[in-house]
């Protein structure tokens, strides 16, 4: 055989061997998983469990206290001690000032209530979170921000709990005590949608990412 043909043959065979190996490998990977999505799935599941269990441990009184932690006589009305430009608690950003109940440091980054303290204790260090209060209007659902730390990133989880507010439920003062003003006598973010004793149903949504 001529040398040139020999070299060509050997080169081609070497190439074929490598090609076969590559084809073999591609055939062996019969499932194409999303490698990035895989790790996220576990994290998301963990977040979901944490958020669910945290929201379940909050008592009804604690939830109600925060939902009604509204200053109906301020103008414009807002949650107690929130900065002037917003009516919600901005998470960890610095804003106005207020005497507070159970969260140390002024201004309060989260509602200075027991609910806020629980949220901060559970999520504060590792995650970011928002809390929305969804209520019913004639036009559909509206959301009032309670805590807003920014737009949720990817892999966010949402958990919710529902709470019924009645006509004679009283707004709370900044120190947590009953203010003596009922929801239907004050400027409250939700309005009375029912002829009965029921005022509205508020859904507390916690988004964690």
């Amino acid at each position, binding site marked *: *055989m001529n040398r040139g043909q*020999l070299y060509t043959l050997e080169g081609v*065979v070497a190439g074929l*061997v490598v090609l*076969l*190996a590559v084809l*073999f490998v591609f055939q*062996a990977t*019969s*499932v194409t998983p999303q490698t990035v999505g895989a790790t996220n799935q576990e994290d998301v599941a963990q977040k979901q469990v944490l958020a669910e269990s945290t929201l379940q441990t909050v008592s009804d009184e604690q939830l109600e206290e925060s939902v009604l932690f509204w200053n109906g006589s301020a103008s414009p009305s807002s949650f107690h001690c929130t900065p002037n430009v917003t009516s919600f608690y901005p998470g960890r950003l610095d804003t106005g000032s207020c005497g507070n109940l159970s969260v140390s440091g002024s201004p309060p980054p989260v509602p200075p209530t027991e609910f806020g303290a629980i949220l901060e204790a559970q999520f504060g260090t590792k995650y970011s979170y928002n809390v929305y209060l969804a209520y019913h209007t004639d036009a559909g659902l509206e959301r009032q921000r309670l805590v807003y730390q920014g737009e949720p990133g990817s892999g966010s989880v949402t958990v919710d709990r529902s709470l019924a507010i009645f006509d004679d439920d009283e707004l709370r003062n900044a120190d947590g005590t009953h203010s003596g003003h009922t929801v239907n006598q004050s400027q409250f973010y939700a309005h009375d949608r029912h002829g009965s004793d029921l005022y509205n149903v508020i859904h507390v949504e916690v988004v964690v990412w």
Partner: protein
Amino acid sequence: MRISEFLEDDRGVSRMIGYLLTVGIAMVLVSGLFLSGGLLVSDQRDSTMRTQLDVIGNRVAGSLEAADRLVNSTERDPRNLVLSRSLPDSIVETSYTIEINSDNVVVEESGGPLAVTVNVETNATLSPTEVRGGPIEIIYDPASNELEVIRG
């Protein structure tokens, strides 16, 4: 070639034979490579299949227990309870079966030796059955306080 020429020839070996030997050895090496590679991959597949069977077994067991929790969450038994779970039709390109016994779930690959058992604890009784792997439905029967798994 006459025998005398053959006997007097003092060359080593013909180039053709040399070449064939080299290529032959290379082929043997390569097929040896593919064989062991194939064995390794099938080992990987086995362990993967075992993990996947375990995941499915836990999903089924978890769903049975969740259905049981739901049944126990009210004073009276529910009139109707059906849980749907969309499990994959096959895992590692093999079909599998789900067997429900009175206190555990066995997920087994069809036509293979691999099987995983997961224990289940429920107040309701589990109706023993065997279904082909894939989307399932868990149905509660209040008359007999039984949870039944069917292919859905």
